């Protein structure tokens, strides 16, 4: 009897996933364009993607969106570094001192869902109407997920890895930096990603509310002028900030932990 061999499953091309992602986006934009042109969605609420794309040149030349983009990227980067350094340090401390963890973990979790952006007047009183008020809003809102995920990652480290460290007589600090931290890294990165999302939302939101800074201020200006195409294009740039950070984080994670 002849048995047909099962076809071997080929590994996808390295560019297959990003190209599929871009193609899906293009198809989605064409579908939105068609729906708006047909009239199912009003052009006065959502401008067609072609109009949004056409506004990019104007935004670059007249509104200096590239400079504003880098302004917001700078704020996010500063807040991101702060939430990573402080979040991991606080998470490690809370894991180390069990009483502190038991006393504060619920509060930190509750803070993660707090709408910090509404507290912008307080931040303006403390820091003034400047870039630090915006960065601190991002920092405070992005901190809780990093703390919580650091605790979760360290607590979830397999017991046997800790025992390997103990069998080699590691000191407490060595245990943290050579075993617990690298073992918890994938979970910590989930926290950093979430923290950056929260920080970005709050940074752009604060820029919008206090009419200061980068993309948030531009969105506010464009919305005031009822420049819908420009507003959506600027929102597109906010998404671009998020994409840039996610890609950079992925690179850093792969560098720190090449294979899971």
């Amino acid at each position, binding site marked *: 009897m002849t048995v047909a061999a099962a076809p071997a499953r080929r590994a996808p091309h390295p560019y297959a996933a990003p190209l599929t992602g871009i193609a899906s986006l293009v198809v989605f934009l064409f579908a939105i364009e068609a729906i708006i042109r047909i009239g199912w969605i009003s052009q006065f609420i959502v401008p067609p993607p072609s109009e949004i794309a056409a506004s990019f040149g104007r935004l670059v030349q007249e509104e200096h969106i590239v400079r504003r983009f880098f302004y917001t990227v700078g704020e996010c980067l500063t807040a991101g570094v702060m939430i990573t350094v402080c979040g991991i340090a606080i998470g490690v401390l809370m894991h180390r001192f069990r009483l502190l963890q038991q006393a504060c973990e619920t509060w930190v979790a509750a803070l993660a869902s707090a709408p910090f952006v509404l507290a912008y007047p307080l931040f303006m009183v403390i820091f003034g109407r400047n870039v630090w008020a915006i960065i601190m809003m991002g920092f405070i809102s992005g901190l809780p997920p990093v703390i919580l995920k650091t605790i979760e990652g360290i607590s979830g480290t397999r017991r046997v*890895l800790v025992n390997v460290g103990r*069998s*080699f*007589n590691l000191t407490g600090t060595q245990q943290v930096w050579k075993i617990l931290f690298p073992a918890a890294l994938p979970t910590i990165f989930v926290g950093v990603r979430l923290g950056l999302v929260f920080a970005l939302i709050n940074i752009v939101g604060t820029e919008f509310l206090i009419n200061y800074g980068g993309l948030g201020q531009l969105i506010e200006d464009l919305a005031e002028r009822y420049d819908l195409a420009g507003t959506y294009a600027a929102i597109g740039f906010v998404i671009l900030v998020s994409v840039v950070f996610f890609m950079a984080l992925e690179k850093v994670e792969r560098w720190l*932990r090449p*294979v899971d």
Partner: protein
Amino acid sequence: MAAAPDDAILKADGISVRFDTPEGAVIAVDDVSFTVRPGEFLSVIGPSGCGKSTLFNVIGGLLTHHAGVVSVAGETIAGPHQAIGMVFQEESTFPWRNVTDNVAFPLELTGMAKQQRIERARHFIKMVGLDGFEKRYPGELSGGMRQRVSLARTLASEPKILLMDEPFAALDEQTRLLLGDKVLQIQQTLKQTTLLITHNITEAVQMSDRILVMTYRPGKVKRIVDIDLPRPRTSEIVGSEAFGRYVAQIWSDLREEASRGMQDEEQAVLLEDGAS
């Protein structure tokens, strides 16, 4: 029991461990004493629940709340000791380090220069037969290969005593026999004093000079059997008549204990059912 010869490198004297549980105190290990001579391969065998792993943790210094004394070359130990290198039952390689960096881990702790520790690590990688895989990460290796990385990492710390807790328990029988060959080869090359905790009779007889048989809970020393099989050994020895006799002898010792363990488990399930 067991008068300690003066040349013993490892001595366990009157080890007892008690755990307090909601159902009451459980004596896991009860007055266990034995010695291991330099270069000797001693296996501790017993049914599940006899306290083998507890004994492993006590000797490795990971469990300190016990009665009795563990000493290495006359020095009483009260925690992990650099003379004892541990290989764990569970997969214990560091997934974020490649094979070389995993094996070089203990050398890194000593502050050895990078180039020197890489060379040293390569020596032990070759010893466990993983040359060619130096740059691979544990996630890219099979279970047996990962256990060999763990073994190489422990050997790299050059311990006086190699302490292994069922290192091949999760592997299939064929891989287990072949890795047993590898361990024997290394042990014979390095004249490495080895203490193996296992529940596998074949593995114990294949590798050991002596086998300590433990009773079911509380874990006590039931008998110590000398394995008088020629060395160097390989897995081919499992087909010999003498090997079969040792396996039968140890099984007859263990059978009663394993049956007790099984009855105990059944009783516990019935009690649990009754309670609910």
